C-alpha cells in the first residue's frame, strides 16, 4: 500500500508527497507536529499539516535567510532569531566565527526537542555556546528592546496560526527599535503566486516599508513550498544589500550549497508581476 501526505497549496491545488513511514506524531501546546520519512525529500517536518522543512531542500531556505544579511554586513555580532525551531537558521549562523551571540526565541519548545531527535544535522547548531534559547512569544520578546541586535531573522510559520503576530506592524516596529543603527531585519515573506500567500506578502511588505528606510524583497526557489517560488524580506535602517561590497564575505570562504554572491545580486531581481504587486502597497 502506498502512503501519501497532502498539503493544500490553495483551495484548488494539492501537493502530495509519497511517504515511507511516519516517524513522529505529537500535539504540542500550540500545534500538531509530524515527522515523516519520504522518498523524494528524506525526512520532512510538518506543523499543523504544512510542510516546514525537508532534509533535501532545507539548505536553500537556510542559506538564503542567513547568508544574504551576513554578506551584506559581515560585522554582525549579535543576532536574534525568532521562530526557527528546526535549528537550520542557527546552524548557518554558527558558521560565522565573528558572531558573538545568537538568541533564538521559539514559541514551541516541543518543536526544538523533536528536531534535535529527528534532524540531527539541522539542529546541530543548538549546542554552540553562543546560542541562547528562549521559549516564548517573539512578539513579546522584542517589545520594548532598544538597539540591542545587529540582525533579527524572523523565521516563522505562515501568518495563519501561531505565527500571526510575527507579521504584524507592531512587531516589525518593535524589531526596528530593537535593532542597532546598522541593523537588518530578515523576514519570511510568503509567496507572490497563490492569492492567500500573495495577500500576506503585500500586507507584510506594506508594514515593513512604512517602518524601515530600506525595504526590499528577494526570492529563492523552494521545491516543497507552495508554487516553489518563495520570498524573504530584507529591511534595514542604512544598509542596501544590492550596492554593498560582497568581497569581504567571499574572503570568509564559507562553503554553501545554494547561496553565492551572484545569487545574492540576482535574488533581488524580481519578476515584473511581483514588482507591480509590491509597488502597489
Amino acid at each position, binding site marked *: 500500500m502506498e502512503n501519501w501526505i497532502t498539503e493544500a497549496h490553495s483551495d484548488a491545488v494539492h501537493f502530495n508527497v509519497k511517504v515511507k513511514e511516519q516517524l513522529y506524531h505529537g500535539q504540542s501546546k500550540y500545534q500538531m507536529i509530524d515527522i515523516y520519512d519520504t522518498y523524494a525529500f528524506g525526512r520532512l517536518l510538518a506543523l499543523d499539516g504544512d510542510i516546514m522543512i525537508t532534509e533535501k531542500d532545507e539548505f536553500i531556505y537556510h542559506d538564503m535567510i542567513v547568508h544574504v544579511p551576513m554578506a551584506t554586513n559581515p560585522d554582525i555580532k549579535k543576532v536574534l532569531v525568532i521562530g526557527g525551531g528546526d535549528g537550520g537558521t542557527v546552524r548557518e549562523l554558527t558558521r560565522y566565527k565573528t558572531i558573538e551571540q545568537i538568541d533564538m526565541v521559539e514559541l514551541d519548545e516541543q518543536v526544538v526537542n523533536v528536531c534535535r531527535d529527528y534532524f540531527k544535522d539541522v539542529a546541530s547548531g543548538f549546542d554552540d555556546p553562543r546560542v541562547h534559547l528562549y521559549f516564548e*512569544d517573539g*512578539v*513579546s520578546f*522584542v*517589545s*520594548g528592546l532598544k538597539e540591542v541586535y545587529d540582525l533579527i531573522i524572523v523565521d516563522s510559520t505562515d501568518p495563519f496560526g*501561531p505565527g*500571526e*503576530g510575527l507579521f*504584524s*506592524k*507592531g*512587531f516589525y*516596529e*518593535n524589531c526596528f*527599535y530593537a535593532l542597532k543603527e546598522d541593523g537588518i531585519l530578515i523576514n519570511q515573506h510568503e509567496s507572490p503566486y497563490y492569492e492567500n500567500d500573495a495577500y500576506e506578502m503585500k500586507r507584510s511588505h506594506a508594514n515593513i516599508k512604512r517602518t524601515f528606510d530600506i525595504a526590499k524583497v528577494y526570492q529563492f526557489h523552494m521545491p516543497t513550498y507552495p508554487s516553489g517560488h518563495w520570498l524573504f524580506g530584507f529591511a534595514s535602517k542604512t544598509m542596501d544589500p544590492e550596492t554593498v561590497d560582497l568581497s569581504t564575505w567571499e574572503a570568509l570562504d564559507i562553503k554553501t550549497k545554494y547561496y553565492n554572491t551572484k545569487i545574492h545580486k540576482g535574488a533581488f531581481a524580481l519578476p515584473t508581476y511581483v514588482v507591480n504587486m509590491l509597488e502597489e502597497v
Partner: protein
Amino acid sequence: MLDHNKTPLYDALRKHIESRVIPFDVPGHKQGHGNEELQKLFPKSVLEADVNSMKSLDFLGNPISVIKEAEDLLADAYLSDESFFIVNGTTQAVQAMLMSAVNEGDTVILPRNVHKSAINAMILCGAKPHYMYPHFEAKFGMTIGVSLEEVKKAIEEAPEAKAIFLINPTYYGVISELKAIIEYAQCQGLLVIVDEAHGAHFPFHKELPKTAMAYGADMAAVSLHKTGGSLTQSSALLLNTRKIERDHVKTIVNLTQSTSASYLLMTSLDLTRKFLMTQGEKNLEMVLELARNARDKINAIDGLIAFSAKDFNPEGCYGFDETKLGVCVTGIGLTGIHVYDLLRDEYNIQVEMGDSHNILAIFSVGDTEKRVNQLVSALSAIAQKYKREPLDLKFNSFNATAVAYSPREAFYKEKERILITESAGRVSGEFVMIYPPGIPILAPGELITEEICAYIELLKREKGSISGLKDNNVEYLYCIKE
C-alpha cells in the same frame, strides 16, 4: 442549585432540526435554500437553527416550556428569582426595567454617566431624572463610581423619587458603593434597578466583583453578549419579585420585544449560561491572568497607565473589574481617540473604545495569550513611535448642568437650530453623545453650558465619533424654542 448541565432550549432546537419538519412558516429563507451567498456566509447549521416560534420551541412572549425552563436556569445562575431572555439588546432590558419601575411624572435618581438607553426609556415612560454626580477622576478624564453619601444627598434632594438606577460596573470597570447603596435605598422605599451591561461575567469567578442581584437589587439588565460570550444582541433582564411582579414586567417587555425572537440568540443564551456555570471559573481564571499580565507589561511602558483599583480615588471606587483593560495614554502625548484610531488603522487591532484620555480593551473568555501579546506589542510600538510631551487635558467634568425639562417634555417641545458655538445658555432639545460608549454629554431638556460647548469642540477636533444630533456635521444643535 439547579442542574446547569441542562440546556432545555438547545435540546429542543436540536430535536426540531433533526426531525426535518417541512417549513411552511417564516423565516422565508427556508434554511437558506436558493440564496447561495447567504449559504456561503452562514453554514447550514446556522440557517437550520434560524427558526420561528412553534409548539415544540415555546414562545418568548409567553414562555411556558423550554424557554421558561432556560430562563429559570439563567435566573438561578444569576441568583435572581426570575429572568427574561431579551433579544433586542440590553437597551431593551434597560428600557423595560425603567418602564416597569416608574410611571409618568415619577422621579428616578440616576448617575449622570448613564447610557443613552436609560434616558430614552424616560422619554418613553415620562419619568423625571434626578441626577447624581459620580466622582470625576480628572487624571483619567472619566466619571467613576457613586458613594453612599452621594445617594443619601440625592434622596434628600428628591424625596419623592420612586426608584434609583445604578451602573455596575462602569464601562472602565469601576464599582460604586453598591452593597451599602442597595441596602440604604431599599430601606428608604426605593426600587433599585441596575444596568449591569458590563458585568455579565461577575457571578462566575470569586475574584470578580459581586452583582447587584447578589445584594438583593430589584432588577438588573445583563449583557450576556458583551462579556458572557453569547451572540450580539442577546441579553437578559433579571428580577427579584419581592416588590415587582413577573407578569407586570412581562407585559412591559412585550411592548417592545420582537414577536419573532431569534432562536440563534436565545439558544446562545442557553448555551452560554451552561458554559459559564460549568466552565466559567476555569476560563475566567485564565482571562484574569491574561489581563493581569497585560496590565503589568503595559505599566512597564513609559507614558502608559493601565489603571486598576489603586489608581482611583477611593471615594469613587469600591471595587474593580480587572477584565476591563483601560489604558490612559495622555502620558505619551496622544488622546485615547487618536490611539484607538492608530490601533485600528495601523495595527489591525480593534479595541472597544477611545475617549479623550483612555482606550479600553475588553478581555473575555475568547481571548488568547498570543493576541494579547499583539495588543501589548502594538502599544509598545506606539509609545516609542509617537511619544511627545504629555497632554494636559483640562476637563474638570462637563456634567454639572441643570435639567430644565424632563426628557419627554423636551423631546416633544418645539425646537430651533442653533450653532453649537452659540448655544450656551439654551436648553438642548436632543442628545449629544460620544459613541461608544453612548453616554450623553447632553440629554434632551438639559441646560447647555460654555464648558459643554468647549468639550464638544474638543471632541470634534479629535475626530471623536459624536452622535445623537440631527446635524451630522455637528455644527448645529436643536434647542428648545424660547
